[in-house]
């Protein structure tokens, strides 16, 4: 450095800054006056266990699914042939989906409790215990989720929302579930991949790629399109779901009212 003295000051500023941000990242979460100080996460990124390759993930997932399936198969089969108590949670897309699922429930002697949280995202549900609270309240035997439409364009979603998606799934516990993916109106930044990665095999319905007639907002499917959407989900469940509900005959009425519907207002 003796031949480049003009650089010493700058170099030290950069070095000390780097050291500071690495040290801070080892101590997160840090809060000052109630404000969370976000860190570079360098420490976590450097010390985390190497991520398994996609093949390893697929293999582990397969194995996990097979083991779980084997254990629960008999039990679930027995249970899934009985009338179900369904809890359906999610964002405003439930406006269209829940009435159709309610109609299936009515036709087949199931009960449906729906919880719409307007403008909600995986973050909103994932950072609260709302799902767990509703499970304790309604004691469902099956959980439906439809989330993701409000986070189609969030950048770096795989890193930002992973823990929330995991948290939502962990709140479900051992209950059979189905996560209905958002009805994309533009390519997303990875929410569908993220849910698919975290959900158990046969518990994620990919809505992306389906045709939807939209309402004037350009995002929500029309009433008829939402009915067709729910019908596709039910048909898919019979063939591909890890937990197909036995009695899901197509209802005579296009829509019905849920046993109970709860509405949460937007968080902001």
């Amino acid at each position, binding site marked *: 450095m003796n031949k480049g003295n003009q650089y010493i000051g*700058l170099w030290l500023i950069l070095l000390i*800054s780097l050291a500071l941000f690495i040290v801070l990242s080892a101590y997160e979460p840090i809060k000052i006056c109630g404000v969370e100080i*976000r860190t570079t996460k360098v420490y976590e990124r*450097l010390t985390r266990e190497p991520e398994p390759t996609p093949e390893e993930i697929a293999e582990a997932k397969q194995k996990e699914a097979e083991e779980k399936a084997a254990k629960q198969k008999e039990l679930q089969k027995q249970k899934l042939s009985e009338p179900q108590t369904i809890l359906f949670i999610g964002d405003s897309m439930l406006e269209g989906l829940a009435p159709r699922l309610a109609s299936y429930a009515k036709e087949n002697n199931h009960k449906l409790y729906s919880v719409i949280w307007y403008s909600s995202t995986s973050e909103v549900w994932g950072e609260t215990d709302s799902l767990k609270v509703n499970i304790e309240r309604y004691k469902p035997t099956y959980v439906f989720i439809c989330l993701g439409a409000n986070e189609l364009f969030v950048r770096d979603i795989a890193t930002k929302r992973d823990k929330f998606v995991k948290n939502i799934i962990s709140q479900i516990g051992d209950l059979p579930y189905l996560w209905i993916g958002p009805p994309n109106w533009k390519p997303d930044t990875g929410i569908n991949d993220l849910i698919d990665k975290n959900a158990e095999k046969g518990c994620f319905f990919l809505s992306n790629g389906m045709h939807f007639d939209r309402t004037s*907002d*350009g995002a929500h499917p029309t009433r008829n399109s939402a009915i067709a959407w729910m019908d596709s989900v039910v048909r898919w469940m019979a063939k591909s779901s890890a937990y197909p509900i036995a009695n899901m005959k197509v209802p005579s009425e296009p829509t019905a009212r849920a046993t109970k519907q709860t509405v949460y207002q937007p968080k902001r």
Partner: protein
Amino acid sequence: MDLSHIWHNLSEFLIYQKDAPMLFSSGIFWFLFLLFIPIYAALKNRRWQMILFVVAFSLYFYYKSSGFFFLLLIGTSLLDWSLSRMMLKLGSKLAKKLCVFTSIVASIGVLCYFKYANFFMWNWTQMIGGNFQPLDIILPVGISFYTFQSISYIVDVYKERVAPTKTWLEYLFFLSFFPALVAGPIVRADYFLPQISQNKKATRDEVYLGFWMIILGIVKKAIIADYISQYNDLIFSNPTGYTGFESLMGVIGYTMQIYCDFSGYSDMAIGIALIMGFKLSKNFDFPYKSSNLTDFWRNWHISLSSWLRDYIYIPLGGNRKGTIRTYVNNFLTMLIGGLWHGADWKFVFWGAMHGVGLAIHKAFKPILNKIPNVWPVKAISWLITITIVSLLWVFFRADSWTDSLAIIQNIFTNFRYDYIPVFLSVRYIWVVMISIIIIAHSLPRRWYDVISRWFVHSPWIAKFAIFVIVVQLVLQFMNEDVSPFIYFQF
């Protein structure tokens, strides 16, 4: 703490990752730059070792951004340099022209293949009918920039404006110089090659001025542009899903975003080069202060517009072949400039409309010059210019022609004044950011000189504090999401 994990994760950072090009605002770049500085400082007096080191770093930088396409960069430089040396030995003008022709055809050919092959083929199949299966072509990062540098070098050598470099390594240094490699400014051979020969050391003041420019660039790019883009993306991804007022905000937002994004990155490039003792020319000079389109293009992406002027407009005849030809040349130059931005008709349209605007301004200049240049006239001129520029950015940004028209139509037919207070209360950070840009853009130039001088001579701890605060702000805003307003429909 498992050291093998650290090593594994670090090596993951250091290899090419398709979705993570090395940007100046990324942590990995600053980690590597921290290693780069002491070695560069130690080698600065040994010119050849310094050149070799910077070339190696630049190629690695390019590898991190574009994988093995760095070999293409090496190939291009080898061909250009060989042809430029050949020109020096050739006596015949025709033979020299052949060298220039070969180099340009090779450069443009490679660019066309990677950037325009699918576009041309798609248009061709549209004309003749039939199915089009796009080729799986990955566009090497920065190819448009270094292709223009390569053309300027070979043409300047032919015109004897610059002497060809004695060694290939010097030319590769020029072509691959990492601060300007992936997003400009487009470096001109006649400006840059003498700096390599002189190998001037940066003064302490230049080092800190460079650092100041980097900080400014980070604020513009990584804080402001990246934050406001989230809202703008929502508007452009769902053109009819918002009110006209929200769409208008999206258009204004994108106008500011593209400026902060691009000029911020240019500032960082210029700053890094300055720290190394190299001067890159200014790329943006308060373009949104312009009161006509001609002025706008003198101040927007200056390295590109001056390149287009010198290597397209003037060779086409410039303004030397009569009024009509001047307009046509202007139009064609802007058309090519538009296509340079991307292989899509929307860019062609954007360039063409700017070409038309420039021609109209030229045509009316004699009349406009007679109007007294008082402030109301200046204000109206500015308003007309910024409106044209902003509306044309809509075509530049939107995914399709239909989306562009939908957004513009929405502004005029579904404005909804009642959304203004709601917008201001919910999107207040966005509004603050936009206000900061507008205020910063309106400040007198000399204020920037005063502030930068203050920074350069400020105590070490002040520089450190400013840098840390800026990086922390980047982190704070990086994870801030702007959710769509779907619930507004209910």
